[in-house]
């Protein structure tokens, strides 16, 4: 008789084995899916960038650099070396000094100047007035005060992704917009998840008239035009980003409720649910312990598809002026700004677009990977 003896050598050995749950199996299968794993990695990088990126970035996302409006993306620092000397010369002409030597050494400007008359040390103010020089100091003065050696710090800034039409660093803005977009995605999806799962599972499990009424409510909400709904919410609650996206989540739960309800109806007829009923488990207990854990597979897959949907929705709302407000920004806003400046500054469109595309791709690939990993037909 083979029944007891077979199956598990570990059992016979008596070692404490931890069961391999369905999730562990799914994770194992996911690990073999390269696209999904790369996506997961990218997603983790995005989350890291969203959380700590704006703190690490050298520029604040709201700082305006008026002299660097729409400078193209470059690895070189601004101002460029060949621009500093003409700038310094033009400023120094106003001091009426004779410039003997002028050179840029890293972040310092080195000027040797002389004059017929005694030089007033206050003339350094002329240099200070320019935006690019700071901390001008006289290093050496000749005995007769007719020639000086001056040094000034040059503030050289790097804009890896260039700056926008207001002279703000695009990299910092993309980092903060990733934060906003991810936050919105997580927030709205979380709200949709909680309402949708609770609503769908209750409707599907109770069935009959309750189910009918609950799903008709869903149908009515479906019929509401979304834009109209969003505008109404803005009218009532004002422009509050968090509230706005709680509201988006409150609209997006409809699909989730339908998915969960369908799952629940098929689960309710399964024998393990009947077995729980025969044990006398209450409806709440059955929902909590039996129905909801078993619907989680499709729910998680739908979630990974809902996040990009919400991110796109946010772009749309922001485009209409209903979403996030300046100086905060989101990927959608950046892209719409980029589209306006496409001819003069294509990098303003390219970088945010790449950021969004990469995010959406990785979410979708991860969703596909999870779907394949959790699909019981493959077992």
């Amino acid at each position, binding site marked *: 008789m083979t029944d007891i003896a077979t199956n598990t050598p570990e059992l016979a050995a008596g070692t404490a084995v931890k069961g391999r749950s369905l999730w562990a199996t799914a994770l194992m299968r996911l690990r073999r899916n390269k696209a999904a794993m790369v996506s997961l990695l990218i997603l983790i990088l995005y989350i890291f960038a969203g959380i700590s990126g704006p703190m690490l970035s050298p520029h604040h996302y709201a700082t305006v650099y008026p002299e660097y409006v729409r400078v193209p993306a470059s690895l070189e620092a601004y101002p460029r070396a060949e621009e500093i000397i003409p700038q310094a010369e033009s400023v120094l002409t106003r001091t009426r000094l004779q410039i003997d030597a002028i050179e840029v050494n890293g972040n310092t400007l080195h000027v040797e100047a002389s004059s017929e008359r005694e030089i007033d040390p206050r003339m350094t103010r002329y240099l200070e007035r320019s935006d690019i020089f700071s901390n001008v100091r006289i290093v050496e003065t000749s005995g007769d005060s007719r020639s000086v050696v001056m040094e000034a710090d040059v503030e050289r800034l790097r804009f890896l992704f260039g700056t926008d039409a207001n002279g703000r660093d695009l990299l910092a803005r993309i980092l903060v917009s990733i934060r906003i977009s991810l936050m919105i995605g997580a927030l709205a999806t979380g709200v949709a998840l909680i309402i949708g799962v609770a609503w769908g599972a209750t409707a599907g499990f109770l069935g009959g008239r309750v189910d009918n009424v609950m799903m008709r409510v869903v149908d009515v909400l479906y019929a509401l035009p979304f834009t109209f709904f969003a505008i109404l919410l803005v009218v009532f609650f004002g422009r509050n980003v968090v509230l706005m996206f709680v509201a988006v989540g409150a609209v997006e739960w409809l699909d989730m409720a339908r998915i969960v309800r369908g799952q629940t109806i098929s689960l309710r007829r399964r024998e393990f649910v009947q077995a729980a009923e025969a044990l006398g488990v209450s409806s709440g207990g059955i929902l909590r*312990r039996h129905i909801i854990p078993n619907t989680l597979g499709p729910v998680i897959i739908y979630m990974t598809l809902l996040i990009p949907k919400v991110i796109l929705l946010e772009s749309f709302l922001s485009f209409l002026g209903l979403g996030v407000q300046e100086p905060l920004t989101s990927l959608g806003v950046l892209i719409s700004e980029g589209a306006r400046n496409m001819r003069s500054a294509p990098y303003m469109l390219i970088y945010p677009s790449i950021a969004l595309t990469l995010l959406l791709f990785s979410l979708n690939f991860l969703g596909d990977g999870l779907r394949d990993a959790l699909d019981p037909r493959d077992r």
Partner: protein
Amino acid sequence: MSAERIFDIRNLHVTFDTPDGRINAVRGVDMHVNAGETVAVVGESGSGKSQVMMAAMGLLASNGRAEGAVSYRGQELIGLPKNRLNRIRGAKITMIFQEPMTSLDPLYTIERQISEPIMVHGGLSPSAARRKALELLKLVHIPDPERRLKSYPHELSGGQRQRVMIAMALANDPDLLIADEPTTALDVTIQAEILRLLAELQKKLGMAILFITHDLGIVEAFADRVYVMQSGEVVEEGTTRQIFTRPAKDYTKMLLAAEPEGSKPPVQDDSPVLLDAKGVSVTFTAGGGFLSRSAFELKAVQDVTLSLRAGQTIGIVGESGSGKSTLGRAILQLLPSDGRVVYQSVPIQGLDRAGMRPYRKNLQMVFQDPYGSLSPRMTVGEIVTEGLLVHEPQLSARERDEAAIKALKEVGLDPIARNRFPHEFSGGQRQRIAIARAVILKPTVIVLDEPTSALDRSIQKQIINLLRQIQKSYGLSYIFISHDLAVVRALADYTIVMRTGRVVEEGPTEEVFRTPKSDYTRALMQAAFNLKEVLSRQAVAPA
């Protein structure tokens, strides 16, 4: 026999690549079939008997690989390109499967299902194909064949669907018919009819039949030669007579000895009545929605009365659709029903979920499907102790864990199992877990709904022994629902035979089995215990 060897499998290996590594499902199997003979392949589930045929026919799952040689009349089949394989597969070698519903396309009429392959393979005109289809349906004895041509698969019963499948398999005059558990999903009387049909067709058309089954009763009545398979290898082969009278290998002996045996003595007449059900009826209504006023009513159980005494086992026997499972659920108030059910002089009929809760502890149920009745996302420990959460909420997690250890030991499982998940266990082990879940509450009555039907015979026997032992140590009463007469005979001391929702016959088990009074019971007994006689009688006088 000096007949020509038409189908020859030599040293066949089948491997599957899975995430857990490579699985060798078939390990070096040699088999052959001669023209016109009936060969049976027997083995328990997981012995690789079906995979041999799948590999031979090029039907393996995508992660499977076959190595070795399979030849049909000298033509090598493995590695043959699909278009050439199709000239043999489906024409000279045909297959019928276990589940006739899923083998037929629900969107096409029977006529189209049968005639399309004939038109494609045989190049017949539509009208000729139709004539041929009709002829085939007559050949497999489908009543009213002209009308059936226009039917869809869901309008046919299980037995009729299997007949259609056989008709399709016969369409191109095959040399060899491979039947993979063709009667497992059918009731015993239908099974006997299908087997009779196959035997008759074989006589008429002279094809060979390769019959895959786990049921030794069928093999004995039906086959000329037998291959016994165990874990991917042929352990024994020989003529049916030889295997059944002088089995050489222990495994074969174990299979032969696995028929349920023993019986249960009746309880004393003065033992108290625990559960008394009078005039139980269950009616399902379908349709009758918002707009259509007329609802369709199905009387699943009509006016059934039974009383269960302490320590008694009542066996409820019937074919599918007889309402036996519905009756079991109605008694436990899991379905809305009419009538009067009294548990220990408390009427429990019509109590709602909360009202029933105090009695649920004493009235437990074990379900048929060991794969479906355990929640896949819970550990065995959580499953087994769930009832304690409801009925003894004062217990701490530690005490619950101790109770789980005790219950698992009682059903013969290693307590380490409680950290694992149900999908890691075999069917028999899962059924033990389900029994542990019921026993942990120390109930007085357990309704067992076909607890052994999805299991192999040898595992069945273990479960039967386990149920006996638990009954003895706790003085439990069982209501045992089954279509399997042999199991009921071994376990029950009182038997109720049901048909279409009504009781046909009832009485002490010995009496019912020895001297069945109704024709229906007699037909059931014949099909279950005397298959050979049923088949031979029909072969003499074909219908």
